[in-house]
């Protein structure tokens, strides 16, 4: 972690250090560092006056948080019901094969992370793949190569 106290302080201040804002604070830290670094959790506990165990409990309960660093490009494969019945599994396997990692993992060079998400709410365009929050609908096995190449 490029430990930058100022960044964290700014996040804490944004929410007036309210204990209720724990999830929001962690979300902002996650956004800043692409994961939740251990030392940041300690500082969060201190700043919000929340027990460290609770900070850790919340960090591991919600999908939004990751305790390991994510890659520069996050490929999120929607596996919602509609995507599932329209072949999200095949898409997922193809992407996993192309990048050589499984869902939930990050390439050793820290370039890519694959995630699966249970519905991004673009079901009409199923199957959907989001690359760094940019949505791509109607993804096909044939079109996938182009998509990944572009990235």
């Amino acid at each position, binding site marked *: 972690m490029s430990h930058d106290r100022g960044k964290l302080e700014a996040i804490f201040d944004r929410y007036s250090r309210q204990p209720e804002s724990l999830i929001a604070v962690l979300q902002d830290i996650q956004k800043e560092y692409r994961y939740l670094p251990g030392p940041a959790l300690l500082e969060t506990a201190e700043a919000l006056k929340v027990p460290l165990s609770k900070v*850790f409990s919340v960090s591991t309960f919600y999908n939004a948080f990751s305790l390991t660093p994510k890659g520069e490009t996050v490929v999120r494969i929607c596996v919602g019901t509609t995507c599932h019945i329209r072949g999200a599994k095949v898409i997922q396997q193809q992407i996993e094969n192309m990048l050589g990692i499984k869902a939930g993992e990050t390439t050793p060079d820290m370039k890519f992370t694959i995630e699966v998400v249970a519905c991004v709410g673009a079901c009409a365009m199923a199957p959907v793949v989001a690359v760094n929050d940019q949505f791509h609908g109607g993804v096909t096995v044939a079109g996938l190569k182009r998509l990944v190449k572009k990235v």
Partner: protein
Amino acid sequence: MVELTINGRVVHANEGEMLLAVCRREGFRIPALCHHEAIEPFGACRLCMVEITKKEWKGWSNYVTSCLYPVEKNLIVLTDSTKVIELRKTVLDLQLARCPNSPEIRQLAAEYGVNQTSYEPVVDGDNCILCGICTRICEKMGFSAISTVGRGHDKVVAPPLKEAPPDCVGCLACSLNCPTHVIPYIDNGSTRIIWGRTFELIKCSKCGKPTITRDFAESLSKTKSIPAEYFEVCDECHRREISLTMGSIANWEREAAK
């Protein structure tokens, strides 16, 4: 006062009391694994579920966790109906799939006729039943050193970052209250090891026996304003001292009476 019927017997309870407490007071045995007098009811183990109904519900009944259900006027409670027994059997069968080696679970399950799980044993299952007594009691003690980590089937009890917990004082509330005795600790004379941390045990200044951990003593004297010296003497020696004091007071009174 509220009047209700449990297993056909009319009983009385105070407004706001929970069914479990009333049932137990009246001698009806209800199993529970996540219930602890010192902490708020939780409703996680589901073993204390009972069937409830009322005359005006016209044959409809509901299944509720008695630990959390406040008594109601004219409630008709069945603590051992067929469905309730079936539910307890299922819950224990499921628990047994997760912790097949826990003597406590095995015994309780056997009481309900479940000697072996009928489900696929859970890989990596340990004896923790995730009742949450340890984490909740730790919070109640004011330390919140441990918590549940993760969610769903992968949930575990662990210290933050799965490292030695900084807020732990080694009070043993978690370990001693665990219904399946799954939280280990080692006391060897002058030190105590729990959750991967080593604590200094205070030696009684009178008899030399270990008392509580230095961290626990410091925390208690700080938060409960008890003088730190109090913890330098063990409970037994405290009692011995008190009896000596009481004795001398008695002597003094006798002298005064003369």
